[in-house]
């Protein structure tokens, strides 16, 4: 079985909408394709895998962006944002990426059964895709909060 062909820009648009509604950001995000993965990033990645396909969906940003995303999900006040422990920021960003991936999975199962959603992982630093991975990267801007969506997917 071959993996379904995906329009990654469409996936990015859908992810931006789910992220926005997950954290209560009502203004739609601007979504723009960008070249390359940021070299110094923080964010959460989650795998989606099925027969003939493997995707890693990553929602990343600066530490400040991740903190703003977590604060919005948790409905924290401005004072509480700065005091959020890193573990809670990571947990919240992981939860947002988990929600987004659930919606991507729902789109994928329309054309391919047996796709499994894995568990999210929060990382700091650089991501190096393997030789057989293609990469699509998008800037998602929610008002003053810039995020980067990284979609790693197996070639062929």
């Amino acid at each position, binding site marked *: 079985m071959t993996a379904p062909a995906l329009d990654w820009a469409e996936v990015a648009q859908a992810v931006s909408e*789910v992220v926005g*509604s*997950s954290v209560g950001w009502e203004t739609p995000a601007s979504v723009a394709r960008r070249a390359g993965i940021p070299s110094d990033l923080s964010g959460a990645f989650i795998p989606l895998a099925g027969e003939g396909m493997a995707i890693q969906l990553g929602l990343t940003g600066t530490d400040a962006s991740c903190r703003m995303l*977590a604060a919005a*999900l*948790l*409905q924290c006040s401005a004072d509480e944002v700065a005091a959020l422990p890193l573990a*809670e920021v990571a*947990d*919240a960003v*992981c*939860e947002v990426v*988990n*929600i*987004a*991936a*659930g*919606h991507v*999975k*729902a789109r994928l*199962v329309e054309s391919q*059964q047996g796709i499994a*959603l*894995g*568990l999210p992982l929060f990382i700091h630093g650089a991501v190096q895709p393997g030789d057989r991975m293609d990469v699509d990267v998008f800037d998602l801007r929610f008002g003053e909060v810039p995020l980067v969506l990284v979609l790693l997917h197996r070639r062929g």
Partner: protein
Amino acid sequence: MKILVVDDSKAMRSIVLRTFRQAGLDGHTFVEASNGREALELIRTSGPDLVLADWNMPEMNGITLLQTLRAEGNNTRLGFITSESAAETKEEALKSGALFLLTKPFTVDTFKQVVAGHLA
């Protein structure tokens, strides 16, 4: 009622508790677990009236938790609150004996609409 909230995300557990408050569904006692295995032990020992469980969790996922309970003859009421929204997932949940499957993200109104009827 004693309600067990099972999710590996502390953020999501707090959102569920917050949504109970925002929906005006007060007066319940909450217990939390971070995976299915921990929840299974709590259900066996403390007998909650209702379990709200995530689907994808480490150690033991939500559907395995539900199927393990039913295999033991334990009919504790359980509903899923999960990012899984595929029709096949919902079908498996309901076939295994879940009360409902509520997809994240959810609004306070949707939460109330789905959960309130199971709090009696």
